[in-house]
């Protein structure tokens, strides 16, 4: 048996990519070469971005591993991604994250196109301009046109940077649904809210106070065009914080139809508690929610046929073979498997049923969005993904 820890990082990363490719081949019964695999959806001409074009980015702020997703034993956990979404999109098998493997800082890096270096647990804005600031500033878009729906307090500052010439005036609205739920429930005297509202599965016993700009509960309800009572009533029907995030995102889509929407899902980060069954359940839920997001896009007139959807974990999780880690539980070792993940892109002009094996980086998302929507992410370090343009 080949021992993966004795291989060099790049070889492991390539091997991960290869296993994904092989699996996709077995799934579809065909070779995964783009030229023979694509169907005839004409790609858009570079630079031919339409002002009507929209983009939604879905990240998993709790990485997942191939073993629980794309490897044969894991495929049962992601039926919707595999059978419904993959055939409609372009799949990048090898996304290598070379930054810090903490969820807030990694998601901020995704949103800026620069590997951010701040303390993952600090309540600070990104240092480089975010995709929302480029988008709003260059295209002169109103604040209602860029939104972030995020799971925890730690993400409160992700909507805008402290970079000169940019900043909150060009940033996105950041909505933290769990916080509003807590406010709405403040009058209740019973209920295990503390565990519901645990902010970060990495430090599950700690619930930080929110910092930065706040929206009041009633402002929030007004934004969503529903009463606080209806918000709570609906929350009572949902089984997880990610389902609540999706509910809020759908309300935002219907009310404002933002051109740029960023949703960070977080349920699968329960893996930090060390319970494999809970991690698997969360992957299955995330798979279902991704399908729901795609179907919502198809059903909303403002989005159907105009929207590119990007789905990617922010990074992986530690391999079973990494001595310094504890397998799926954490992402602390920085080993190749914890750094290697994937990206699925769907939407008009994006090749269907297509697989890309070359290594790319999460930093490439922002320049790609820039090329699709028509703004210039001048300080981002990544490169546009040519396969999507």
């Amino acid at each position, binding site marked *: *048996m080949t021992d993966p820890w004795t291989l060099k*990082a790049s070889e492991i990363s390539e091997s991960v990519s290869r296993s994904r490719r092989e699996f996709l081949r077995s799934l579809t019964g065909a070779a995964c070469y783009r030229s023979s695999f694509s169907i005839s959806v004409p790609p858009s001409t570079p630079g031919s971005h339409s002002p009507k074009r929209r983009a939604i980015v879905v990240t998993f702020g709790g990485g997942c591993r191939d073993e629980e997703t794309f490897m044969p*034993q894991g495929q049962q956990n992601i039926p919707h991604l595999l059978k419904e979404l993959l055939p409609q999109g372009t799949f990048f098998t090898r996304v290598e994250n070379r930054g*810090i*493997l903490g969820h807030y800082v990694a998601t901020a890096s995704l949103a800026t196109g620069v590997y951010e*270096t*701040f*303390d993952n*647990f*600090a309540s600070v804005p990104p240092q480089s301009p975010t995709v929302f600031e480029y988008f709003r500033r260059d295209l002169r878009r109103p604040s209602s046109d860029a939104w972030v729906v995020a799971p925890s307090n730690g993400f409160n500052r992700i909507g805008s940077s402290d970079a000169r010439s940019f900043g909150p005036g060009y940033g996105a609205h950041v909505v933290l649904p769990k916080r509003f*739920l807590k406010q709405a*429930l403040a009058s*209740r005297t*019973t*209920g*295990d*809210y503390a*565990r*519901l509202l645990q902010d*970060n599965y*990495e*430090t*599950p*016993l*700690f*619930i*930080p106070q929110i910092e930065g700009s706040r929206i009041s509960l009633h402002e929030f309800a007004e934004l969503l065009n529903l009463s606080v009572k209806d918000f*709570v009533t609906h*929350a*009572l*029907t*949902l*089984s*997880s*914080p990610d*389902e*609540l995030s999706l509910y809020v995102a759908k309300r935002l889509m219907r009310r404002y139809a933002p051109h740029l929407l960023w949703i960070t899902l977080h349920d699968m980060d*329960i893996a*930090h*508690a*060390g*319970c*494999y*069954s*809970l991690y*698997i*359940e969360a992957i299955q839920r995330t798979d279902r929610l991704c399908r729901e997001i795609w179907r919502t896009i198809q059903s909303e007139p403002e989005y159907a046929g105009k929207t590119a959807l990007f789905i990617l974990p922010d990074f992986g999780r530690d391999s*079973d*073979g990494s*001595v*310094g880690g*504890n*397998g*799926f*539980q*954490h992402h602390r*070792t*920085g080993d190749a498997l914890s750094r290697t993940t994937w990206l699925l892109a769907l939407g008009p002009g994006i090749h269907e049923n297509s697989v890309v094996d070359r290594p790319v980086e999460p930093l490439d998302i922002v320049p790609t969005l820039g090329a699709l929507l028509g703004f210039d992410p001048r300080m981002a370090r990544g490169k546009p993904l040519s396969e999507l343009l």
Partner: protein
Amino acid sequence: MQLPIQVKHFKGYPPEARHVATSHIELLRKLPAAFTPLLLQQVQEYDWRFPAERRDIDRQLTFLESLSDADRRRLFTGFEQLQLPAHLMDVKWASSPVEFSEQLANYLWPTGQIDAFHEASSTYLKAVFAAMPNQPPAAPRLGIAVIGKGVERNSYPLFRKFRTHGMHFTDVNPAHGLKTLLAHVADRAAAHPSSFDHWYIDGGHAEPVSNPFLTNISYSGLEPNRLALLRKINRAIHNGIAGPKALLSLLHKLQPEEIGFDTAGQNGAIVSHFATSLLTSGSGTQIFSTSFVQWTTRELWRRAQPLTILARFAPRQRQRPMNELLSGDEQTVEMDAPGSLIDADMGSFYMWLDQQRLSGAEEASFLIWFEDHHEAFVVSPSLPRNTESNSRVDMHWLLAQTG
């Protein structure tokens, strides 16, 4: 760069740790600043360390003493090349090396030096093991995992990750299974009587078993300590502790007595410090018994390097969905037996992987049994791999295959 180490720096260390540190003070003064606190982190706890850990610390110090200055410099090139900020040297690296190591990691990640650090550490450890290899164990190691307590029917495919490594048994007579296993580990403890070489871990209430060399930890037995820890954490948060890192730092500094452990006697002190570390360093161990058992086996193999571990996973508390949490009904804690079986199946695999990392892995055996059911799996040098047996066997027969 080296640290300006003086005897006074070890004033707060417990007696044996202080003796080890001061005996090697000249050596410590010659080691790179990025490395020395990491070694001191091991030395500082010397009094509460398992015998295997003490041997490991002694081995490192002996090896480093044996090197010429030039060879030592060559060995530590990777550590010397790390660029560290001056403020890191202000940390209390002698009295609080854990804090130093946390701040070091916090600096290495954003500055892109974490891979170089891992490389330097790996180079160092390889050199130590090459010069002074691990001794083979006194007897082949045996790991036993008992999973699925309380599960009546199961459709989850068990032992999938083990399949290529041993033999799957589908018709095990479950009668007296647990009793037989407990008697077997007690017999092993009697045959190889040595402190901390034999362990029985239970995710629920421990079964009665008696042998002075079979150490026992149960999740139920630690309940008063877990609750005391949670109260302490809640109090710290209520008092406005600065953030997750400050909380972790508080946990690392926690002494067993502060959460109700009895530290009388040297062995008692070692077990109490170990159990405290399970609750303060393990993620999820304070809440979920399956996480506790898996983490305990990991830490035991890594630190105590015992000959025997019997780990029995028990149902953990159910993770309530959001709508239930919101409903406001204060319910009694429910157990999730089916989910715990899945946790335990994976936890057993990790237990085996950690066992495989120790010396004598080729001779070691591992047995995993679905409690009160007919399924078991055995990895043993005497059994073929990737095979299945439908023959009727009992627990005595399975144990005989483990050598």
